Each structure stands twice: as structure tokens, then as C-alpha cells.
């Protein structure tokens, strides 16, 4: 139960919503599927006086633009992404990641934009503060950090747990942001600050309008893995998204993007490992070497009871398998291209 009063409005266009939020000011928040916002209101880590609901706003189904980019409205429900034939064909990794979110009931209402805009998480933060952890922590505007008491006031090691953001990073996606001054298009990575206190670059009154995903190159392979304890209805222990290209003549990598999620304040690219991959034959021995390197390159925050060494172990093994899957898919795709 939400134990405070608030207003609720339901404008019929994104432009009207942005205008209305700018009018009401900082006490207003956008509400999309509500699967992050409502629990956060219930436990009192956000207390908006006014919710501007986006749920009455019509949105277009996923489509390809003139350049072959896949365009998805930010209000698209995750279940629609999961089941869209177009998304499955053009960006199967995105469909896979949407499918991995929570459970079906949540995916029926949760939106793509909301998933990207979700708050960072921490065991201490994500609970009621009636009698436990009553003093507000840094993230809630207070003066302490429960899990990391030595942290300075400007450091919050909460983790960003979107299952989808790392995929969009690996796919080199772009994002259109609508603000009072109109729409701007940015690389997806520009959405994230890497700061647990304020994980997004969006200003109040700005909202994600749509996502753009470039067409996959011809010798492309992808791999996605969400490590969990029970395989569903949970956020990731660690999450990895791999997009790679191989040269036409074999399994030598020509380009690769690896994004790791759920273990830092935002999705993290593995620049060094990606650089090592380029020009390398992606055989099992090299994949093992790359996964070892990647597990050292990531600097996971201990979160939700998982230790840093375990998270490294988890990423090392699962990234190796995810890379192998991506290579296999690239190979399959190559065969398809030839035939």
C-alpha cells in the first residue's frame, strides 16, 4: 500500500506529458508500466506529489525505418517486444532480453522506456524504512551508506539491473529523448551516468521517446546470458550481452561489443577485451582467454549477497559460453548467407 496521497493525470500524447511535467515541476514523475515506480513509492524511496501517466498515450508497433534501423516506441510493452516477429528477426537479442525480465504478468505492463529508466537497486534501499534502516541513506538524501559505511557522500554502490540496457549497448542502439526543447537522438550509452546516486542523464521533464537499433551486419553473432539463482522472477546476479562480427573467411573476429549488466551502477562495456578480440580467431582456447581477461576487466560491486570474487567467477564462465554461442550464431549466419 502506498501510504501518502498523490495526484494522477493521464495526458494523451508524449508532448502533452512532457509539457505537463515541466509545468508541475520536480514533484511530478512520469508513470509508465509502474513496475518500478509503484514498488518504489510503496517503500517510500520516491514520493511524487503527482504522477503523469503515459499509459493512455498511443504508440506505434515496432517498425523498420528507411535505413533499415529497427524503431521501437519506448511505451512498447516488454511482452510485445518479446513476441514481435519483427523484433525477433531484426534484433533477436533484444527479444531474448525482454523475455528474461521478471515474469509474464510484469512484462504485460512494463515498458521498454521504463525498463531503461529503472532505479538502481540495493538490498538496503529496496525495502520499507518503517523500522529498519530508518535513517535515510545517501541515495534517499540522507547521510549514511548501510552496505558500505566508509563510502563518501557522493558515492552510492547500488547496481543498475536493467536486463535490456546492456543488450542495447552491445547492439550500438540509439535513443530519442523528448524534452521541453524537442527531441534529440543519442547513443544509448549517453543515457547512463555510471553514478548510483543519479544513474540517468535524463533531466526532469525528459523522457525516452523511442529506441533505434541499427541493422545487423552480415557476419553477425550475438549472445545473451542472465545469471540468476532460480531462473525467473528475479533480477540478474550478473548479465552479459555480446555482439560480434567475424570476417567472411572464417571465425576471425572483426568487431565486437560486450556489455555487462547488473554488477555496476550502469551497463559497462569491456573495451579492453573487445580490443583483444579484434583480429583474433575465436576458437575455444581464445574464448577462454578472453573470458578470463573480461572477468578481470570488470569490477563488479558486491550486491544482493554475491561477493565480488563470485561475480567474477560467474562472469568468467558464463561469458565464455555466451561468446561461444555468439560465435556459433555468426557461423550459422555465415552459412545462411552463403546458401
Amino acid at each position, binding site marked *: *500500500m502506498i*501510504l501518502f496521497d498523490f495526484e494522477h493525470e493521464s495526458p494523451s500524447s508524449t508532448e502533452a506529458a512532457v509539457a505537463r511535467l515541466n509545468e508541475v515541476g520536480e514533484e511530478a514523475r512520469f508513470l509508465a508500466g509502474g513496475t518500478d515506480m509503484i514498488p518504489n513509492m510503496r517503500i517510500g524511496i520516491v514520493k511524487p506529489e503527482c504522477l503523469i501517466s503515459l499509459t493512455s498515450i498511443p504508440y506505434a508497433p515496432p517498425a523498420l525505418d528507411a535505413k533499415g534501423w529497427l524503431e521501437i516506441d519506448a511505451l512498447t510493452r516488454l511482452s510485445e517486444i518479446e513476441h514481435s516477429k519483427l523484433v525477433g528477426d531484426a534484433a533477436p537479442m533484444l527479444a531474448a532480453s525482454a523475455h528474461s525480465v521478471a515474469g509474464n504478468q510484469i512484462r504485460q505492463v512494463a515498458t521498454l522506456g521504463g525498463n531503461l529508466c529503472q532505479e538502481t537497486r540495493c538490498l*538496503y534501499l529496496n525495502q520499507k524504512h*518503517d*523500522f529498519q534502516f530508518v535513517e535515510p541513506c545517501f541515495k534517499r538524501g540522507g547521510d549514511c551508506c548501510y552496505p558500505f559505511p566508509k563510502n563518501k557522500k557522493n558515492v552510492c554502490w547500488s547496481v543498475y539491473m536493467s536486463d535490456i540496457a546492456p543488450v542495447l549497448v552491445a547492439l550500438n542502439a540509439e535513443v530519442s529523448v523528448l524534452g521541453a526543447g524537442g527531441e534529440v537522438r543519442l547513443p544509448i550509452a549517453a543515457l547512463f551516468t555510471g553514478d548510483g546516486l543519479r544513474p540517468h542523464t535524463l533531466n526532469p521533464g525528459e523522457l525516452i521517446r523511442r529506441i533505434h537499433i541499427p541493422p545487423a551486419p552480415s557476419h553477425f553473432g550475438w549472445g545473451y546470458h542472465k545469471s540468476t539463482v532460480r531462473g525467473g522472477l528475479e533480477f540478474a546476479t550478473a548479465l552479459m550481452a555480446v555482439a560480434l562480427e567475424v570476417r567472411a573467411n572464417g571465425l576471425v573476429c572483426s568487431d565486437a561489443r560486450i556489455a555487462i549488466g547488473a554488477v555496476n551502477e550502469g551497463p559497462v562495456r569491456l573495451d579492453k577485451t573487445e580490443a583483444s578480440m579484434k583480429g583474433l580467431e575465436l576458437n575455444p582456447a581464445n574464448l577462454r582467454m578472453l573470458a578470463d581477461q573480461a572477468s578481470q576487466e570488470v569490477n563488479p560491486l558486491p550486491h544482493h549477497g554475491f561477493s565480488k570474487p563470485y561475480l567474477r567467477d560467474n562472469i568468467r564462465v558464463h561469458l565464455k559460453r555466451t561468446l561461444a554461442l555468439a560465435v556459433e550464431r555468426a557461423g550459422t549466419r555465415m552459412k545462411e548467407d552463403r546458401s
Partner: protein
Amino acid sequence: MSKLKYVGQSLKRKDGPDKVSGRAVYTQDVRLPGTLIGRVLRSPHPHARILKIDPSKALALPGVKGVITAKDTIGVKHGFVETPRYPADQDVLAIDKVTHVGEEIAAVAAIDDITAQRALELIEVEYEILPGVFDAETAMQPGAPEIRPTHPKVKEDLVNIAGKTETEWGDVEKGFAEADYIREDRFENQLRTHGYLEPQVTLAHWEGDKLNVWTSSMGTFIKRAKLSRTLGLPYSQVRIHKTYVGGTFGGKIDLYSHEYCAARLSMLTGRPVRITANREEIFSAYRHSQTLTIEIKTGVRKDGTILAQRFRIINNAGAHRGSGVVVIFLAWGFIMGPYRIPNLKYEGYAVYTNHTTRAPQRGHGAPKVRFAVESHLDMIAEHLGIDPITIRLKNARGPWEQLPNNDNTHEAGLIDCIKMVSQKSAFLDKWRQARPPADSKSPLRRGIGIGVTSYMSGTLIYPNGSGVVVKLNDDGSLIVLTGALDVGQGAETVLCQIVAEELAVGMDDIKLITADTDTTPQDIGAWISGMTYVTGNATRQAATHAREKILKVASEEMGVPEEDLGIEDKSVFNLHDPQQRMSYAQVFSASVAKHRGDTIIGEGFWRTMRDEPTHPSLATTKGRWTENYAFSAQVAEVEVDIETGEARLIKAYTVHDCGFPVNPGLIKGQVDGQVSMALGQAFMEEVMTKNGYTLNPNWLDYRMPLIHNMAGSEDFEVITEQYRVGQPYRTKEVGEGLVSGVLAGIANAIYDATGVRLTSAPFTPEKILAGLRKLEREKARELA
């Protein structure tokens, strides 16, 4: 009459249609006009003195109708155990000091949730913070912060001892001296919660001279007793109504503060008051299960025969005695049941810490004890070069064994259970075959493991016995009055089957009135694994009583001796001339007309160990514990990924001696439910705490297994008892003993698959990986 029609059949649940159609009324569904919302103010500190409570600002808030603190109570304490040795130690609202985070300090009743919340925020409490202690072994040591005084009968130089169980027989030292091999191990367990989906909820309505209460519970009579006493009301002024219950698993037995608060606030305001705990409260302030640390030393002969065992068990009991002194008694029982131990020394300590108070949970310590004992036994067997089946058969108790506490194993089927589960699971074919050949590239390893358990089927603890009334209606249908509460285990169905069998009446012609403290006879409640046995026999007796009356009247009317009469389909017939018959409706009329208005009411009552004066001593284990031991042997097959450390249960086999299965379908449900609880305990569930605060108080971060985590489960019954109409029968426990063998089996199977011996639950990938690394280092050292 010889062929059983109802009993022994998997008949559909009596409560099924109500539950699946949404007609079932749970406590939250009970609506009374003018109901106020109650909320409880809880301690933000694990250990603190209360210097001052000032509720005046809350009382002044418009919409607030009542506020209570300890000053509004009569100061009567309560506890799970209330005996001369272990008097109650819990206040319904904290007086002077709080001893765990979330302890109840005050409660408010207001017109809505938001007002109630604001009122809580307006209550001013001044605390003096005291040092807390959270680890049981630290809390025992002299110098640790004192939460409550050590029990006066414990003479050791230890603090915070809530209670101790100590017993021995034979000569342990002599046993160890004669042993060919002695081994010592230590096992630990995580804190785990019940996971009942329906939250704790109570609606109370004081009507001037009568307190009506609806509350989610495991038995209404114990609630009435404890509520009446803490309120200072005669039992007759308190009525606990029956509602359906959405899961309990041991977590809703004795009194909870919110139940008292709802009642007291209703008495103060004159209006109904409802208190519904939210999930965070249940996780971080209510009672979870017990965590036991178990140290075992065993001496054996070369052939695996156990000669002597010594146990030291430490229970982190939390802030109050709770069931902490029961679990250290029961742990002894779970140790001595399955295997012969000629020489035993047992010590169990319940230690106060600044954690939340503890409660029983399905198995009440047995899963932890059996995980320890069965792992330890496998380690011994390996050292001796004996397989897990042989060592268990070597030590397993047989039928008619007299136990050191004068209990008897009766028709024990344990040996058959072990043999059958071994055969059904092809144990010895799979055991040690799991590891694939060296050239296999797959990181998956399969393993198989076994665990054995025995469990009590009812014992003596308040309210001890059950009464049942069976009433014949004038159309020949039946009303059954029983205090038994169906908490999902199927009590209503099973009792109905017994009545149907004894009186030859269809299931749909029987209406049960249950668990209402004003209108139904007293009952033991759904929490000591004796309902089918105790309430069931009371029901059988009541039905027999009614049948005797029916046959007597029919005999007179038909002019046929009683022994020549049979019953079927709500009628009595002449066994020699089946055309000659009388319907129950006709019998009823005749009885009323010719037996001075006798409307044919049957009465029955039952109690386990009917000739024992009282329950066994929790401190010394003296006195009989149960007359009815259930036995089981269970096998788990697991699959472990040796690169990731991730493990899962593939299949569980359960073979159990359940006495006589009244409803095999319901038993199967119990087995599957326990397999799922065992795998949750094995792999995923843990209440994480830090300094007495709960870190994961929600369903997202406390991970219960999901439907796709379920493993295949096969179960087989070893039937050691028969049901005969009109005769007492024996059923044995099936509702909580079967978590243990699966948990133990999983631990042994992980070892079989990987060589990693885990001595602490849960069996996380992190622990399995650490074990595998250790093995690699050892191997490298050997090679060097």
C-alpha cells in the same frame, strides 16, 4: 463391510471447490461495518532500553481512535512454551526494553491506513541503545551483552542460555574406546522463513461482553487460550472463528502481538479492528525457523555399526525462548529415531540473541539434524569403504524396538523403506558412476545421495486431545463438529472420508463445522503432526458411536439382530435379506419417536499416548515422546555444473512408512510440497541479516523456488497398518518429516557428483566452486 470405499481412496478435496472458485473466506475477506485499521509500532533497534513512550501526539491526530502501549496491558506474558521450568517470557508490547528489531512497542487504530501510518510516526519513543549480540556462540560466552538471564538450572559459566536439553544413555566414552573409527564434524544452517502466502492478519471485534476474532492460524484453540490469558478474559468470552488459511508451515501457531493488539484496540474503541502485517514486517519482525549448529562425534566398528555418538547442538533462538527450547528437545528425538545408538550423549542449547523470535517450521529442526547426521554417516561409510545403503541398513531400527525413552517403534517400516528406495532409484548402479569419463567436455556432473528420517505422529502438548461430534440429520445426512483446522493439509477431506467409511454416507452428504472455539469441540490443532491420527481416531469414534445408535434402533425396528445388519448408502439392511432395509431418515424418526427424542449424536475423543500423564521433559527428554513413529528413506539426484557451481535437484524418490494412507492423493501432495521446500532450503532460500536487521524482506530477494525449479518426485508407501471399520487405526506422520531426507540426500548427491562435501546450507554456487578449488589445490599438492 470388508471392502473400504472411502478410506484409502484419493478422493477430491472437501475444500477444493471453495478454494478454486474464490468462495473460500479468508480472514482478510471478513468484512464488518466500521472496521478500524490497526498498525503496530516496532523497534528500530536490536537491543535498547525504552526510556519513554509518549503517544499523546498520535492520540490527538484526527482519525486516530486508539493507541495502546504496555501500560494498557495487564502485564501477562506469553510464550510458545509455558511450563514451570520454562515460564513465558514474551510481553505482548515491550516493557522497559526491546530485544530485537521490529519488536512491538505500541499499536494504533485509525480510520484508514494513511492515518494509522501518520499516527505511528507521531508516537515518540526515547531509547538508550544497548550493545547487541547476534551470533549464538558469541552470545553464550561470559561477557556478552545479556539479553535475558541464563536459565537458573543451567549451572555452566555461560550467559543468555534460554534453556538446555541434556540426556545420555549407555557409556559414551566406553563406546568410543571400542570404536575402530571415530569422526567429528560440524554442520551449519541458514535462516529460513516459512513463506506462507497469506500474510498474518487478524480482525477482532469486542461486542461489550464477547470478543470475536478471525485470525490466520494453525489451530484456533491455542489462539483462544493465549489471547484470553493476556487479555484477562475467561475463555468463554473469546471466540475464534474459523477462516480458511493461506499457508502456515509452522509460522502461525502461538500468539502474535498483532493479534493481541487488534483485540485490545477493539476493546478500547468498541469498533472492529483489523491488523494485516505487510510482507516486510513478516520478514523482518516476525518469527522464522531455527538455525542449528550441530557438532557430531561418532564411533563405529569397521563394519559400520554405530557404537557411540555425542552431539552438541546450539540453537540461535532469537530474542525470546519461543520454540527454541522445543527444537533442542526435538533434535534429540530426530537423532535417536532412525538408527540404533547404544551409547549417546546429547546436549542442546537454546541461546538468546538479538534476532527475531523463532518459531517451528515444517520439520521443526529435523531437516537440519538429518542433513548433519546423514552427511556425517556418508563420510564415515566412505572411510570404511562401505556403501551408503549398507551402512544405513546396518544401523536402521526395525519393528518393535524399545527406545531408551520407553517409546516403541511398533510396526516400523524403515528397513523396507531403505531397501525399496535403493531399488526404485537404482541407487547402487548410479552411485559413484556419476562422474563422466575424462574425455567428456560437458561440465555437468550427476550425483545421487540418500537421507533417512523418522518423525513423531502426534505428541502431548496443549491442547493435547481432540473431541469430535457427529450429528445425524433427519434426512439421513450428517453434520460433523470438529475443532480441526484445514490449513491446506486436507484435514476436512480426511475426516470426512473417515465418517463416510464408518457410516456409509457419501462425501457430499457430510457437512463439517470446524475450528470454531464456541461451537466445535477442542482440538490439538494442525501443528504437531498428529491430526489424522488423533482427530481422525476421535472422528472414527464419534462415527462409531452414532453407528451403534443407528444399528440399535434399526435392529429393534426391523426385528433383526445387530450383528446381522449392514449399512450402505445412508441405510441399514439385513445381511441375509438385503431387500429388507431402513433408511437413516427412517431410523432417525424411529429414534426420536421411541427413544425419548434421541436425535442420534455420536461423540468421540482421542489423545495420543492416552495413558501418559503429561508430555516428556524438554530438559531431560524423560517421559514418552510419541507412540507412533513415521519412517522414511529418500534419495536425491542432482546435477552440478562444475564450471559455474550451479546445482539443481533432478529427481527425488521418497519411500515412507505412513502407517495407513487415508488419502493417498493428499499424501502425494504432501510429499511433493516437502520436496519443493527441501530444494528451496538446499539451493536458494535464506533470510539474510546483518546485526539483527533483515536485508531481503521481500519475495524478490528472498528466493522461493518457482514452478520450473520443481524436480521430478516419485513416492511409494510402505503400508504397515490396516484400517478396519470400528477399530482404532494408526496413521503416521506425512506432513513435515519428508523435507529432511531430500535435503540430506541433496548434500550427499552433490558430494557424489563433485567430491565437494558441503557442511553448511544453502548449497550455493559460491560454496560449490570454493569446494572444487580446494579439491584442485589438494590434487596439485599430491602431484607435487
